[in-house]
């Protein structure tokens, strides 16, 4: 019999707001000392009251709109109670009754074509802290830096059916949320985590099989392996009766390549949700809603199509630039100033992206001012600066955001001056010093001219418009 796998995902994404969801502590503790970014509020001390960080709601709405959700104009927060040492108030503030966004749709593309994945809801909530186990001392310490860092949980419908689709779905979420600049979505950094709900049923059946959940998956490769393993385990159980499937939470051990049932004690429990009386319902009025809508970027495929159809880029170039919103913005600004999409794309791909790669920075980390890049392109196309020196200026612009290309070129003597006399002098000297090349050229060896050209350019330290040099050189050689 043929089987199909039915998968639903719960994806936790850390929002990239500066501060935490209910207090003003920094939400970024990567590389910090334990408990460096904590206050009585995020440590759950009695007497502190939560005050909603409006930016978190902004980002939650943006995420919802990027995933084609309806926004709940009145969205509320609820308390979820459970005991664990990394949860200082013994409750997590989350959204149970009226999440910020519902009923979304995400289009994915796999080797089998396009498919729509429905989003059930997106809710905002606070993260918990971290327990640090000290094996040497046989003790456990708690770090509250991550407590109250804002998260969204994106709950899909069980519309996914393979590891390939799951990967495409996660990539798509990451791409869209990065486009909206609301999240980093880096599994390796823990800013994107995933719970996988999976069941198996005979192909074509409309009845769902027994569902198991694997929590806190944090790498795509592990998720793919876990899905394959679980699918095989379920089929084996159904066909061969190797075990009785039960609805349960399982832990994926990526090293052993196996999933294990968690003790029921770790998973059972009644979270006793109820509305948090300390957080007033958040009412999203038209001004707020429209304001957020106006800040949304074009979707990646809209950018791509625009670059091909309006800007005249090749599909390959359009794909490369459209992969990151930071590249898109820089590129579009550069185009607006330079009036040449072809030149701007060329600079983006062969210089800007290469530099980011060399610096081991992600494309999203690009902070280069696109307008200034456009000015630089104009300097080069206008023969004011050579291409080679243009690259030098770009490096300076990367290192210092305040660098103005024209001013920098002037200050560092990189402007191509009208130096015909100097060029003629250098050309004369080079011709005199290399009679062999001159003779070769005259006997029909075109390449010999290039050798002379290179020598001249070297003498001039690149400070010459190539076309001007070529004209003078050809003229002088013919005279010689």
């Amino acid at each position: 019999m043929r089987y199909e796998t039915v998968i639903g995902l719960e994806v936790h994404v850390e929002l990239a707001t500066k501060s935490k969801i209910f207090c003003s502590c920094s939400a970024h503790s990567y590389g910090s000392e334990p408990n460096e970014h904590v206050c009585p509020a995020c440590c759950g001390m009695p007497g502190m009251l939560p005050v909603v960080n409006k930016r978190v709601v902004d980002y939650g709405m943006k995420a919802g709109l990027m995933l084609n959700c309806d926004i709940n104009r009145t969205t509320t927060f609820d308390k979820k109670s459970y005991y664990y040492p990394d949860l200082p108030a013994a409750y997590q503030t989350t959204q149970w009754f009226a999440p910020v966004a519902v009923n979304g749709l995400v289009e994915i593309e796999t080797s089998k074509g396009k498919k729509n994945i429905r989003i059930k809801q997106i809710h905002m909530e606070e993260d918990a802290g971290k327990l640090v186990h000290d094996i040497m001392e046989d003790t456990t310490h708690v770090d509250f830096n991550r407590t109250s860092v804002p998260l969204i949980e994106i709950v899909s419908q069980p519309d996914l059916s393979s590891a390939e689709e799951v990967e495409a779905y996660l990539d798509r979420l990451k791409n869209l949320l990065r486009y909206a600049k609301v999240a980093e979505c880096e599994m390796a950094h823990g800013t994107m985590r995933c719970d996988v709900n999976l069941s198996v049923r005979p192909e074509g059946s409309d009845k769902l099989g027994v569902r198991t959940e694997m929590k806190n998956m944090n790498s795509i490769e592990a998720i793919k392996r876990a899905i394959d393993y679980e699918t095989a385990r379920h089929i084996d159980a159904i066909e061969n009766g190797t075990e009785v499937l039960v609805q349960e939470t399982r832990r994926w051990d990526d090293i052993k390549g196996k999933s294990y049932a968690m003790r029921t004690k770790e998973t059972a429990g009644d979270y006793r949700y109820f509305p948090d009386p300390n957080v007033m319902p958040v009412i999203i009025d038209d001004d707020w809603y429209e304001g957020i809508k106006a800040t949304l970027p074009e979707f990646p495929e809209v950018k791509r199509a625009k670059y091909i159809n309006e800007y005249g880029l090749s599909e390959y170039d359009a794909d490369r630039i459209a992969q990151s919103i930071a590249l898109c913005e820089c590129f579009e600004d550069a185009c607006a100033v330079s009036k040449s999409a072809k030149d701007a794309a060329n600079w983006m791909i062969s210089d800007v992206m290469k530099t980011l790669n060399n610096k081991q920075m992600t494309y999203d980390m690009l902070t280069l001012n696109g307008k200034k890049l456009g000015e630089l392109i104009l300097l080069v196309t206008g023969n004011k600066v050579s291409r080679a020196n243009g690259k030098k200026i770009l490096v300076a612009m990367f290192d210092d955001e305040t660098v103005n290309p024209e001013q920098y070129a002037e200050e560092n003597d990189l402007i191509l001056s009208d130096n015909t006399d100097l060029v003629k002098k250098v050309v004369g000297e080079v011709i005199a010093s290399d009679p062999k090349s001159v003779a070769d050229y005259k006997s029909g060896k075109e390449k010999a001219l290039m050798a002379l050209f290179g020598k001249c350019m070297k003498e001039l330290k690149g400070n010459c418009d190539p076309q001007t040099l070529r004209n003078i050189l050809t003229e002088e050689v013919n005279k010689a």
Partner: protein
Amino acid sequence: MKIYTAKIDTASALKVVADDMILTTACPTAAGSKMLDGYMSLFESEALTRLKNAGFELCGKTDVGEFAIDLLGETSYNGACTDGEKILNPTAEAVKANEAAIALTLDVNGSVRRAAAQNDLVSIKPTYGTVSRYGTIPVACSGETVSLLASSAGVLKEALDIIAGHDDKDGTSLSEELCASLKKDAPTSPVKRVAYFANMFEGVSECIAQKANAFCEILKKNGIEVVEVEESVIAASRVAWNILMSAELCNNVSRYDGVKYGYRTQNFTNLDELYTNTRTEAFGELLKTAILFGSETLSTDNYFKVYDKALRTRRIIVEAFAKIFESFDAVLMPACSKTEYTTQDIEANKYLAFEENLYTAPASITGLPAVVTGGVQLVGKAFSEKALLDAAEIYEKESK
């Protein structure tokens, strides 16, 4: 037995005493619980800060019942404060002894209002959201309010003027504009018609009934109309409030788990035992009952059957009051059923506090302002604190 949990020497003429639900950095705040014995807060109650900024000095902390859900403070881990028979409220004792001009308290389950009624003092529980709850021990956040106790209404007006106002640190704090009506110089629309809740007086002692009659006579003499009203919905406040209060309490005291601060059991070998033994050893009986009850009402099985019903009841009660306020400016009802509670009363009924709050729950569950004076309680429209205190001043003048 203890009136003060801490005393602070001060030479100031303007003194405030705070009950042990109000956080301060000057001395520990235990909320009447062994769980928080010696707990030093890192920050101070906003209301206390405002009083201090206005020239008041904190002269001490008075004891409270464990998390302030009992009658008068008798469930404090320090033991009940009594004169041998009668249960005394520590905060009221401090005010009666003139040790402070005003007392700053947290009204969770009405103990301060009962204390005012039984000691001929005056108290005000302001409209929910007009005084910041920042820096108070959280118990039943949807209804508890920072309240004031004093020997005269005039002092309360002064103090309310200082503590009322918007606070960014409290997400439920109302706008400065809305809080403005509590200020000294704001215009007041006086109490002209009072609804006398006849059915609420049915179960009270003769003495309370007499006090109510005397109060009504004085109002009438001063041109205020008092009309007897039969109202049957509002009494449901008690059950609804007990559900909401216990549920929120259960959640709020869960943070006291022996991990971070407060009491920790010596007797544990794993995390479950740390939690269970810490809480078993440090919490008192009444609190444990409330925790279990609250936990039960929030369970998946009961949420819609119980908790959600209580929320709906709250709305019905708010609407019932709104209806009454279409034709009245205030409601007169008891604050308690009798003029004193004895240790025998408690022995006979451990849960008396969850019955006596029949009289205090209506203002708690709706967030309406309540003034206790002359042994009875006036509940007014939202933001009518000043008019209620004016009425209390009329009573004060005439009864002397």
